[in-house]
């Protein structure tokens, strides 16, 4: 699998896909996208990198514990859901706020977006931890 063609294509794809996945995550509330799609996209490109360059080679300089990623994601999502209680609302009540930033113009901030970021991290962490564990198994 580690042919020159895959390696080269992967090298070009990697940064683009990661940026695209982040844009999908952030755009998700109003346009196609969202945490789940963004997460799967991120996971796919990392998986592709693992396949193209070999797990062992990648691990020598890039070896995050994906378990932490999904742990963080689940915590973030759960805290977002619980935070409504701190403001004396029902569990999972969402909030919307519009803010003006100098350069970006009007930006919509939604608490559900935070939840979506949690989903994003869970999907990335979950898929890649499964992928890495299965791939590592000799």
């Amino acid at each position, binding site marked *: 699998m580690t042919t020159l063609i895959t390696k080269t294509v992967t090298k070009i794809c990697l940064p683009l896909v990661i940026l695209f996945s982040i844009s999908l995550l952030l755009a998700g509330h109003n346009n196609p996208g969202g945490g789940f799609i963004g997460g799967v996209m991120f*996971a796919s490109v990392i998986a592709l990198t693992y396949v193209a360059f070999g797990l062992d080679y990648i691990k020598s300089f890039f070896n995050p514990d994906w378990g932490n990623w999904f742990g963080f*994601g689940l915590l973030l999502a759960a805290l977002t859901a619980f935070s409504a209680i701190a403001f004396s609302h029902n569990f999972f009540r969402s909030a*919307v706020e519009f803010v003006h930033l100098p350069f970006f113009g009007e930006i919509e901030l939604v608490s559900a977006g935070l939840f979506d970021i*949690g*989903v994003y991290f869970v999907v990335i962490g979950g898929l890649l931890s499964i992928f890495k564990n299965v791939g590592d198994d000799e």
Partner: protein
Amino acid sequence: MDSFTAITIAVFLPFVLAGILPAVAKLLKDKIGWYASATALLSLLMVAQVAPEIIHGETIQGTIEWLPSMGINLSFYADGLSIMFGFIVSGIGVIIMSYSNGYMSTKEDLPRYYQQLLFFMGSMLGMVFSANTIQLFIFWELTSITSFMLIGYWRNRPMSVYGATKSLLITASGGLFMLAGFLVLHAITGTFDIPTILHNESIREALQNHHLFIYALILIFIGAASKSAQGPFYIWLPNAMEAPTPVSAFLHSATMVKAGIYLIARIHPMFSGTEAWFILVSGVGIFTMLLAGFLAFRQTDIKGILAYSTISQLAYLMTMYGYTTHEEPGIGVAAATFHLLNHATFKACLFLVAGIVAHETATRDITKMGGLRKEMPITFIVATIGALSMAGIPPLNGFLSKEMFYEASVEMGHLLGGPYTILIPALAVLGGVFTFAYSIKLIDGIFLGKRPTKGLPEHIHDPSMVMLAPAIFLAGLIILFGLVPSIPVHNFIEPTVSGIILEEAHLHVKLWHGFTTSLMMTIATFILGILIYTQYDRIAEWQNRFNAMFPWISVNYYYDGAVNNAKDVTFKFSSRMQPGPVKNYVIAVLLLTLAMFAIPAMMLGTNLIPQNLNFDVPLYEALIFLFMIVAALGAALLPRYLPAIIALSGLGYLVALLFIYLQAPDLALTQVLVETLSTIIFLLALVKIPQKFKEHIPTTTLARDLIISVAVSVMIFILLINATQGIVAPFESLSYYFIEKSLALAGGHNIVNVIIVDFRGYDTLGEISVLCLAALGVYNLIHSRGEDE
């Protein structure tokens, strides 16, 4: 701060601070125990802040809305009973966690230990303040789980694992009975809210006359009895002594095992005053009191003696709460409540002493000890105070509540009349006699007599103040409560009793109250106790012989048999149900789906196929369908893996294309990505397996698979045409609701995303939890395989 907030903080503070404990442990290192003690102290202060209101006779109630549309809320209720338990739990918590600083070696995994202790404390506080039966159940099971983890703290010792498993199986399944009982209670009263039932006389009356009353009572009682080690469920508590001694002192003598007693006291106003209550609660109580007191003789492990004594003392409490008649529902309530508090002090004190002795002598076998009074004078004095209080010697607090127990027994016997006038007081005295005997044994066996020549370390001495001070403090309380009973009685007992019998209670507890019947009974207890003590070793020997002759007269015999059988059966079952090949599971799932489809299909008959079908498909869609058929055939028929996989992914991408035509960009995007990821995973797997399908598939298997596939396809086809243009009643499409409300309610234009993260956010939270569990499961599957070999 208002009282409700204080209670909420008292309950959740231990959870939050335990959550960050591992991080704090990196800073504090070996001193982390003091952080845990400080946490317990904060909870204690929160409880103390609420106490004055309760002592003045008020109750506190409050609710945080959780799922108001379902009627499920987080609600707390504080009356005398819950405050007394709150004090016991957080107060003993402070004592135990400080003591652990001396007891636990710094080589142990301290963060895990203290974290679990704090989790336990939070769960216990949550349980006693719960105003809602479902919430009470959740905290109840949490205490079972934390207890399981603490008993199994030394994971490598088989006996710890055995004890932990046993306690979890018994207490957690008892909890399920309790839950069933609560559901029956809900069916009768129509509410999960405890204060509503307590403060509404008509509901209570309706409950007692309801034909389901007895079932609710029995189910809830099973929960209480399993938690408090009563009746046949007592067997888990002796094995729970495998836990570190501070844990035994905290969970298995002073707090968790009293959860069952708490429950009995909590439901007392609802169920007492009936014959069933007396027979069940007092009956099981008296039986357990005598049995456990008697079996304590056989124990040689000092913690074993204490375990049986705890079972027996809890049975005292059960018995007293069970004393009831129609006219006077709460005969023993005051006595029980006072004894509950006293037992928490003297038993925790004795456990701390047991920990000290085991720590210094490196053994817990009482037959190897003796004559330690000279080497450990302070420990000796503290232990004597604790044991004499348990034996009921004046002027200690155990004497007072034992007297009240006798008094209540006499009254109960008198009210029942007939042979019971003598029988009930006599059984009570017999229980006291056993208690007296094993209490003396503890002192005599450890501290008096001659020091054995071998088996003990040469230099034994009193421990440091870290371990001694908590025990001395408890001994001080024992004397204080004994000499000045008005302090606990006014502050704890009276509010609690008022909360249980639901009327103002005024108690007069005095050290000297003249030559009453109960004093005579106490004197009789002492005389008989001394007589029995002279025969102590012979009785123990007889018990050992009896046990060796009739091993099947024991609850443990049946427990072990059942658990071992269950292991065998489940092993056989799962190895048959899960033979390995994924294909078998898929076939099972598909056949089951077909069976579910078959029933409505047969009922509908020829109406199954809608009449006027509209097959007006645009050309480009028809083309995509054509390609899809080709790709699917390719995936099924191509002889090598690589082309088959490419055909399969081609099929997936075509489906994505179709989604685009059907104006579902989110679905299309997801489909493309999932297809890409699964292709990558396929390719990864492909490197490791042969390039060609090696196995030869027999024709019969092929035919079977073909039939199943075709049947499923036909089923899906029929379902789809029915869903889109068929006879299924045209429900209003859900989409309209979401299209309308998405922007208004959630501020998002992308409906799919809004549904995922907002409208159905709860589902998503569940799904991502499942994903996390799946990832952890894969990790465990792969990493645990090596250990078995």
